[in-house]
Every structure is written in structure tokens, then in C-alpha cells.
């Protein structure tokens, strides 16, 4: 056995079949790369199409619905984004809508305690809103507002015709809307309100956004979730393009299988056909026919085992790459957790 292994390995590694291995390795690297390229291209184009069709806010609501549809994927996605975090409970953050104070536009949002803890947000003065009609403002927005009227902790701020008591001032923090490693959005929230107000604003405002800080559990209540699901459902049914994108892996997997089969056949033909003269020499030197067959089999086996190793690597890369197909659906809206 040792001699067949030695001779087969030398045949593969040295001259004749060296390029074959190169081909196998290239194939293993190229295919996931190709998958990645195609999926990214499609995801982007679908994403852009959605923006044109529905506008940004609806798109985000759609994604929220999609997240609800694929909680297990979302969980994996979060874990891959934050491997160092082991937070079981979801934190969430609503961007509730656009209001105004003294005719200055202001984004009103809600951040739950977990999301707050995980974020890079820093409370400068006072506290976060806890009760109804309380609000906290960002230092940047407060500076802007203070150009007209001087606001301080305890003052009443009129936001879009509704009075709030200013309870806290926080350093402006950005919410990064993450799609994989690709940061596409950067949002801030000028003012934060408490739970009760947030729910009220969410239900009465047509402009809604949601950010999931750490996902894995439902972040909407039933009505809100249904709202998002409806938007998602309508879009999903109507859009053939999105459907096709989901079908793409089903098309590519047979292609990969066919390519692998062709590779195996090529290896076999090369081992048997291209090296007849070498086997004749072995025969002349005293190898028996059965020994030649063993040698051929061993060479074939080594080639295939190498292919298998490459295939496993390919699978690993593929598993890492394939989520790109779900980027549309799994574009988890989150913001980077800077907290320790």
C-alpha cells in the first residue's frame, strides 16, 4: 500500500497532474466567489428597487416583517455580527417619526433599556424618559433649538403640537443600519421618549422605523408586527424578482454538482488515459496488472480526497457566503454595540 501511495502522490504533486490540483483548488475558490458576486448584485438591485417603489420607511418596515419571518436566521446573523456578545434578551430601538420643535425638524425615537446599555449613547445630564410626556434630547439638537429658545432640564418642549418635559440630555449617537458588513445608513435620533409615548406615536404615525439592536425575539407587539408583516406580505407576493433571487441557490447547487462530477471524470480520464505510457513502464519494470490497477486507484483516491478537502473548504466558504442571498430579507436593522 505504501508504494502505491508514494508513487500516486508523487505523480500528482510533481509534474503531470499538478495543474489538475490547481484546477480543483481554483474551482473551489471561484465558485463561492461567483456565488457571492451574484448574490450581492441581486441583493443590491432588489434593495434599490424597493427603495424606488416603497420609499425608505416602508422598506424598513418590510425588513422588520422579514425579520419576523426568519427569526432563526436573524439570530445567526446577530451572533455573527456580535460574536463577543452573549445577550439573550433583545434590545430594540424605534425611530418613531419626524416631528418639529419651534419649526426645527426633530426625529423622535425610543430606545429600550437594553438597547441603551448596549449602545454608545452617553447621558450628559438628567435621565432618560420614564413616564408619559417625558423627553430627552440630544446635545446637538438642543444646541440647535437653543439658538431660538433656551431649553434646560425640566423645561417644557413642544414637539409637533404636543408638550413634553425635558428630562435628560444625551450626547448624540448614531445608529448604523447594518446589512452584513456593509454600513448603508447612518441615522441619529434627536429626541427620545418613554414607552407609553413611543407606543402612542408608533400607532398614530405613518412614518415608522425600527432598529433591532440585538435580535432574536419579537420586537413588535402584535399590532405593530402585523402592520409590518402586511407591508412585507404585499411586497413579497408581487415581486417576482425577489422570488427569483430565492430560487437562485436551487439553480446553482446542481451547477456545482455537475461541475464537481465533470472534475472527477476528468481526473479519472487523465489518470487512466494520459498516463498509459508511464503504466507501461511500470509493467516493464515488474508491476503486475493488479498492482497497476491499485496504483491507478490510489492516484484517483488521492485526487478525490484532495477534492473532498477542497470541497469541505468550499462548503465552509459557501456557508459564509450564502447568507448574502438573504441579505434582502435579513438586513437586520441594528446599530453597532460599542458598550463593553
Amino acid at each position, binding site marked *: 500500500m505504501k508504494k502505491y501511495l*508514494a508513487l500516486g502522490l508523487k505523480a500528482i504533486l510533481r509534474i503531470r497532474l499538478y495543474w489538475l490540483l490547481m484546477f480543483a483548488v481554483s474551482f473551489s475558490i471561484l465558485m463561492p466567489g461567483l456565488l457571492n458576486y451574484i448574490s450581492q448584485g441581486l441583493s443590491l438591485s432588489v434593495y434599490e428597487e424597493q427603495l424606488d417603489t416603497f420609499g425608505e420607511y416602508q422598506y424598513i418596515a418590510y425588513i422588520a416583517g422579514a425579520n419576523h419571518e426568519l427569526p432563526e436566521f436573524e439570530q445567526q446573523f446577530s451572533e455573527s455580527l456580535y460574536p463577543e456578545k452573549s445577550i439573550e434578551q433583545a434590545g430594540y430601538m424605534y425611530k418613531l417619526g419626524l416631528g418639529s420643535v419651534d419649526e426645527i425638524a426633530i426625529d423622535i425615537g425610543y430606545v429600550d433599556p437594553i438597547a441603551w446599555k448596549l449602545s454608545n449613547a452617553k447621558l450628559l445630564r438628567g435621565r432618560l424618559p420614564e413616564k408619559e410626556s417625558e423627553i430627552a434630547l440630544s446635545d446637538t439638537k438642543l444646541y440647535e433649538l437653543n439658538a431660538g429658545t433656551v431649553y434646560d432640564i425640566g423645561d417644557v418642549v413642544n414637539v409637533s403640537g404636543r408638550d413634553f418635559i425635558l428630562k435628560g440630555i444625551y450626547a448624540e449617537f448614531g445608529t448604523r443600519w447594518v446589512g452584513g458588513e456593509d454600513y448603508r445608513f447612518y441615522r441619529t435620533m434627536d429626541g427620545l421618549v418613554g414607552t407609553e409615548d413611543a407606543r402612542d406615536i408608533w400607532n398614530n404615525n405613518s412614518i415608522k422605523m425600527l432598529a433591532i439592536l440585538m435580535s432574536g425575539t419579537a420586537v413588535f407587539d402584535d399590532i405593530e408586527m402585523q402592520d409590518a408583516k402586511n407591508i412585507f406580505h404585499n411586497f413579497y407576493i408581487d415581486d417576482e424578482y425577489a422570488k427569483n433571487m430565492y430560487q437562485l441557490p436551487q439553480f446553482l447547487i446542481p451547477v456545482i454538482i455537475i461541475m464537481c462530477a465533470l472534475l472527477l471524470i476528468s481526473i479519472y480520464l487523465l489518470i487512466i488515459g494520459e498516463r498509459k505510457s508511464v503504466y507501461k*513502464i511500470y509493467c516493464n519494470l515488474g508491476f*503486475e496488472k493488479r498492482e497497476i490497477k491499485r496504483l491507478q486507484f490510489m492516484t484517483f483516491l488521492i485526487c478525490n480526497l484532495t477534492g473532498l478537502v477542497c470541497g469541505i473548504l468550499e462548503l465552509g466558504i459557501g456557508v459564509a457566503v450564502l447568507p448574502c442571498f438573504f441579505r434582502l430579507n435579513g438586513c437586520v436593522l441594528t446599530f453597532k454595540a460599542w458598550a463593553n
Partner: protein
Amino acid sequence: MEYVIEVRNLKKCYKQGDELITAVDVNELNIEKEKITAIVGRSGSGKSTLLNLLGGMDKPTQGKVFIDKSNIYQRGFALPKFRVQNIGFVFQEYNLIPELTVLENIRLPLLIQNSTADSDHESCILDMLEIRDRLTFYPGQLSGGQKQRVAIARALITKPAVVLADEPTGSLDQLSGSQLLDYIKESNKQLKQTFVIATHDSEVSRRADKVITLEDGKVR
């Protein structure tokens, strides 16, 4: 006089269409031990066929071939194993394995029979054939003469009873061919090795100890 190869009533026939062609027809032939014997003859006279029959690489239509008193075509005789252990081959086209280094090519017959090299013997061959400085080279990096020396080393490594060489100088220029014969002579002298060389090279027949001339498959 001691013989290493003895041939009795050896015949090899081919069928070509309806015609039966006798390539070799030798009643009696004896090859002396530790000598260089040249088998000469025109192209198509049956030299290579006879050599193949002597080496067990082809089956005769009839007849017997004894190597070291063993009838190699006897039914049940383990010819492949015997061939590896007792017969060395040198071919016109060298027949080196391209993906093996010079040293690996030389040791290949030992690998085939799962044995290891006798280091003194190996060392002696490498020095005698002056290939020690080429051991890590691949056949593609060698000249024709060097390749043939490697082929001879490979034939000698198992200490065979006889080395059969089919046109060993056929692919070499005159100078390289002449040098190769020097090496064969030296091997014969130092290792007491029997060589049987099929050739149409007049210099080979001139320097051989004995010359057998074949004409239409028969010894003249």
C-alpha cells in the same frame, strides 16, 4: 563455461492477416555468464522480439528459456516476481518515470519488490556511472546519455542475473553512445554483470565479448 541464459527450441509467431509470420526461431542459444553479448541483425530480423522473449516480456509460441537454470515459461512460474529480481532492462527510449527523481527512478525496482537498497552496491553504481551529482534531478533535466546511465543504474540496482538492453545507444549521438558503452564495459568488469544487448550499432558488436547475428529470426 557457465551459461546464465539457455534457450531451447524457441519460436515466436505472429498472425498477419491469413499469413503466419515467424519472428523468432532459435533452436539453441546460450548466453555466457559475466560477458557482454551483442545480438545484431538488420531491422526486422527479430532482435527485440528475441530480447523480449529472453526477458519474459513476451510469451513464446513454443520453446523454453532458462535463466539461472529456471524455466521462466513453465506453467505456474511466478514470472513477474522473478523478472524484477533477476532481470534488468535498459530500453532505447530510457523509460524513466518523469515525476520521479533520478534516485527514485533508480530505486524503483526495489520499491516494486518492497526491498531496500544495498547502500554499498548503490554507491558503487552511482560512482561507476557518474550520476551521483544528478540524484535530485528529474529525467526532463537530463541529457540523453545521462538518462541512459540512469536507466542502466536502475537495471543494476537489484543485482540481476542478467541485464537486457534493447538498442541502448539508439537514441544517442556517436560520442554519447561510445561513452555509454564504456560505462557498460565498466559495469561488466566491476560488478561481473552479464549484458545482452540487441543492437545494430557496429561499435557495440565490436566491443562485445560475443556477437550473435540474427537473420529472419534465426541465429546465423
